């Protein structure tokens, strides 16, 4: 195991940022810490980096107890949301910084910087100042700078959070490819479930200072441990006693399926290739959201006021409806 976190807790006054966190991150893996803002994921990352100290518990990095080591001694690379580039240094100087303070020979530094700038596609900007780069370029520079010292783990704190949607998506794909090339153990913090599902090998869902679930993207999506995880990973809706995804609801225009709930279509919204229905179901205050393909909706000849019978599709991912988390309602 590359990073071993045991029993880590952290409080700020009365606020419990982290409560007894236990997690093992294997060498070479790309892990996402996913959760809502203020849930403690950034604090955990900063504790692993040594930028913050835990009140309780231990952190091992590559088999060494790093709990009391200062950040300088942990050999971790850290990438910040707002780049944290050294503004007065050229791009090449930024990347060279970690190597220069390690007193590496000049020729070696030069070769390594050239190699890394090549890797992050910034070779032609080597002599520019960071202020002359775009946000995406600055973040790639920050990444190259962190990788220069050959860290045993690479930690990224909301690395794409400050970038616009298009650049974010590009960098996300690029990070995945970079990781496949470089194979450094990587942990990144994000509140964007799509980002986590798309990039990570493993996702740790953190909420209110606790770990809700650890698993592969597929596991999390298909077998959520609770309604929070289910709600955080995608849109959900409630049908009778179950919480399930809107696209996991079967729509029929006649009663037939046993246990199906009768309802009336209140609203139909077409977004691209899908149709989103809002259905009033008998005996349920909350409206049910249903997503189906446009072709399917057309085949059923649905319109406002149509009477429909809803049931979970076979193999649908469901969790019992205890309390539907607020995030789920917001994103639904």
């Amino acid at each position, binding site marked *: 195991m590359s990073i071993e976190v045991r029993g880590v807790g952290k409080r700020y006054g009365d606020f419990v940022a982290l409560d007894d966190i236990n997690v093992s991150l294997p060498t070479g893996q790309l892990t996402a810490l996913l959760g809502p803002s203020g849930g403690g994921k950034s604090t955990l990352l900063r504790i692993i980096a040594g*930028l913050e100290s835990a009140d309780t518990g231990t952190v091992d990095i590559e088999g060494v107890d790093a709990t009391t080591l200062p950040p300088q001694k942990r050999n971790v690379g850290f990438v910040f949301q707002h780049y944290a580039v050294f*503004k*007065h*240094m050229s791009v090449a100087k930024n990347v060279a910084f970690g190597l220069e*303070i390690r007193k590496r020979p000049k020729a070696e530094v030069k070769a390594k910087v050239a190699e890394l700038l090549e890797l992050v596609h910034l070779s032609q900007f080597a002599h520019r100042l960071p202020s002359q780069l775009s946000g995406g370029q600055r973040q790639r520079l920050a990444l190259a700078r962190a990788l220069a010292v050959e860290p045993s783990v690479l930690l990224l704190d909301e690395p794409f959070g400050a970038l616009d949607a298009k650049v974010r998506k590009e960098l996300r794909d690029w990070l995945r490819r970079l990781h496949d090339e470089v194979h450094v153990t990587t942990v990144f913090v994000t509140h964007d479930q799509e980002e986590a599902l798309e990039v990570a090998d493993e996702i740790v869902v953190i909420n209110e200072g606790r770990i809700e679930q650890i698993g592969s993207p597929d596991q999390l999506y298909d077998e959520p441990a609770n309604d929070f995880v289910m709600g955080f990973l995608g849109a959900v809706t409630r049908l009778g006693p179950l919480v399930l995804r809107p696209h996991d609801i079967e729509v029929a225009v006649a009663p037939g399926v046993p246990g199906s709930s009768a309802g009336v279509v209140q609203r139909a919204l077409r977004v691209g290739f899908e149709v989103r229905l809002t259905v009033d179901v008998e005996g349920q205050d909350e409206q049910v959201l249903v997503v189906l393909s446009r072709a399917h909706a057309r085949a059923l000849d649905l319109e406002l006021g149509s009477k429909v019978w809803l049931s979970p599709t076979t193999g649908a991912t469901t969790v019992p409806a205890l309390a539907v988390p607020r995030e789920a309602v917001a994103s639904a």
Partner: protein
Amino acid sequence: MTDTLVAPPGPARTTSRPSGLFRLTPTSGIGLGVALVWFSILVLLPLAAVVGAAAAGGWGAFWNTLTDAQTFAALRLTVLEAAGVTVVNAVIGTVVAWVLVRDHFFGKRILDVVIDIPFALPTIVAGLVLLSLYGPESPVGINIVNTRQGIFLALLFVTLPFVVRTVQPVLIELDADVEEAAASLGASRLTTFRRIILPSLVPAITAGSSLGFARAISEFGSLVLISGNTPYQTEVASLKILKFIEGDNQAGAAAVAVLLLLVAIVTIVGLDLLSRRVANRG
């Protein structure tokens, strides 16, 4: 239509957009005019008048005044004292600013206000303040009146806030991220300060030092009471100017003034160049 598409749009473009160096919109023209008139009345014309007065006696008189042993001693003392004070201020001012921004202690807000007192006090009062503690009737038994140390102390007193007040806002604006990034790359606190923080502060330190230096070479009020004004020993340029005027030697006064002006300009430009070099070196 095709003509306009094919024709090189060079001349058309220059008329549509004022890209020339001296092209002004009516409002910016008025603004620039007001600024220049104001600046001329207050600064440029009086400066020119002083230079004119210095030149009135001819080059020979100008040169004689400055090479006069007593005047030269006064000028040398002024510049050396000011330079020494500037160096001390650059270091101590940065430390004080650092403490005020980065440390948390009881009475910090009060200290923050007190810093400005030497600047806010009328300088003659500053002299009086120093005299009451370090004068002939000193309660602590230290008498600095009529010594070069006394001049140094008085200059330190009146120039204290400059570096503090220029460095402080820059220090507040510095990203904590950047220092954390340096730490995670393996940089010690000292290395981080030297290679990351200091280069960001250098422009502010230089600006504050320039102001302090300019103030120091021109200081008058606080020195009237402290310096004792002994020729060759503790006579400074500003008091020398007063003596020339009292002796009805306008040209001599103007000559010293012009030299002080030159020293100030050279220093400010020199410090600015230095700061650019250091800030870009990293």
